[in-house]
């Protein structure tokens, strides 16, 4: 993985649109809804291939989520697609009451999550969606780290009965996984680097940064385990607790508020079962602002460099 910088990059929203299109033939009940963002969420790829199974709801996300609920209640597998801000934010109560409460088989494809939306700024940078979705009983929350994992997650979500929130990004990110060998295991974390001094637990686009940080730390004599948590809910408590027991220190990294996301989920788990120090890297209790995505990630400490420095601090080095 040391050649991370050289390998190809792709935005997971692109993977989302492609996966829907690739899976459409196999699953005739799969239908796609969007709210006037097909070009951005990449469901436009599906729309072009299967126009009769694509329904634009216009700029009306609340109704879109309700329509998805009705389709699911009638045997369809709807993928309701829009930006994370509107899927989890604006439509929250419809997702909770019309999809979550009746536990309907709706898949929510939320793109443009996090600070890496970039230039559009705070109004569109959703750093709260994982927290919001995680509190809905029965909701699965998936944050894939790259193209391969994103496509596999979409395929797995179709086979699962029940509501699923999938978080995708706008920014092209390194493709870490090998499509030939990768297997998506529902609710299971993935150990990408073994180590004993501490464990870096990352999700989404921060997984690549975590791997890069661990490799750099290793060169400096620090053995950092790296776990990719693609399913934030239900959380793989086993892998988290094992890391807590074996390495004694956990560092969580996510492109999301430090309140309510992966860091919170991990802290909740270990504080009740195996209390160890947990340090959370994420967006602190503040709004984002405009700027190029790559620069913003650095500004907000969502970088390998900040992971390295924080890890060293945790180890008093």
């Amino acid at each position, binding site marked *: 993985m040391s050649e991370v910088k050289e390998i190809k990059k792709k935005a997971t929203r692109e993977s989302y649109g492609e996966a829907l299109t690739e899976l459409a033939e196999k699953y005739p009940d799969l*239908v796609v809804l969007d709210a006037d963002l097909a070009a951005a969420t990449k469901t436009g790829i599906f729309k072009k291939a299967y126009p009769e*199974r694509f*329904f634009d*709801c*216009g700029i*009306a996300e*609340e*109704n*879109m*989520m*309700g*329509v*998805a*609920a*009705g*389709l*699911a*209640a*009638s*045997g*369809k597998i*709807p993928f309701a697609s829009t930006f994370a801000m509107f899927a989890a934010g604006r439509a929250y*109560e*419809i997702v909770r*009451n*019309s999809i979550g*409460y*009746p536990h*309907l088989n709706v898949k929510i494809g939320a793109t443009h999550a996090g600070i890496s939306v970039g230039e559009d700024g705070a109004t569109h940078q959703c750093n709260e969606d994982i927290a919001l979705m995680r509190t809905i009983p029965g909701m699965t929350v998936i944050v894939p780290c790259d193209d391969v994992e994103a496509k596999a997650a979409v395929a797995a979500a179709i086979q699962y009965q029940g509501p699923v929130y999938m978080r995708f990004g706008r920014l092209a990110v390194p493709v870490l996984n090998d499509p030939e060998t990768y297997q998506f295991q529902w609710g299971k974390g993935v150990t990408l680097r073994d180590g004993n001094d501490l464990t870096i637990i990352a999700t989404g686009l921060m997984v690549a940064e975590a791997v890069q940080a661990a490799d750099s730390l290793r060169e400096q004599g620090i053995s950092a385990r790296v776990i990719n948590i693609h399913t934030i809910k239900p959380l793989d408590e086993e892998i988290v607790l094992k890391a807590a027991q074996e390495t004694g220190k956990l560092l969580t990294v996510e492109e999301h508020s430090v309140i309510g996301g992966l860091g919170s989920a991990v802290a909740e788990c270990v504080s009740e079962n195996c209390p160890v120090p947990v340090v959370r890297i994420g967006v602190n209790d503040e709004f984002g602002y405009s700027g190029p995505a790559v620069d913003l990630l650095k500004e907000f400490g969502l970088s390998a460099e900040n992971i390295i420095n924080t890890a060293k601090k945790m180890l008093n080095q």
Partner: protein
Amino acid sequence: MDEAMKKQLRKMAVNVRKGILTGTFHAKSGHPGGSLSVADLLVYLYECRIHVNPANPEDPERDRLVLSKGHTAPALYAVLAEEDFFDKSELEKLRHIGAMLQGHPCIQTPGIDMSSGSLGQGISAACGMALAAKLDRKNYHVYTILGDGEIQEGQVWEAAMFAAHYKLDNLTAIIDNNGLQIDGKITEVCSPEPIDEKFRAFGWHVIVVEDAHDFDQLEQAFTEADRITGKPVAIIQKSIKGKGVSFMENQVSWHGAAPNAEQYAQAMQELETALAELEGSSCLR
């Protein structure tokens, strides 16, 4: 509609009203006012329009009903009990811990097609069901009932736009126009009127029923709705909140309050009298 049928519907409607009062009385809470205003509509729909089978409540071919104004669940529960989806004794356990019948409709209850009650949401789910029928080339019809206060929710108009855009002529929305919401008259709280013109402007075929408690008028409206193709139908039914219980009629205070023992006894007495009159006389109103 022949007189025998009308008499049967009227008797059933009185029994449904008794069920509404029994449910809310035992629950010591709930929404009798709006439940009583949709009682006749629900009786008519389940007896004359909706094809469902209590022995197979999840039949994929069945017609669907989404009670978007979910707080009037007691009326729907009383009708479903009459239709044998569950035992009438369930009504006495309404809103109790561990009960089948929740404060607002829950999809797990036999005969309930969608969880609802957070206003404005049911009509969207109904759109999804109607769209699914189109995709699957199935003939089932989808009904959804909204309150006139409920249509203040913006989501209702998102759904109205969607239904017309996708030509959901297998969808009928009934707006229960009793003119009252919790804070007072709908025209004084934040007027949604003119309701008919709004739906027409959104591309719906609109039918106004002047007396929602007259089965002939309901029959006429739904017969007209049957003939409409290419667009969804909105039936605006002018109803009386609290209909059938003298001291509850047109009283906004009965929107969300349960009768006490004395009030319950009086209401049941009135309904028993109404039932006796129906049994004893062929001279109907």
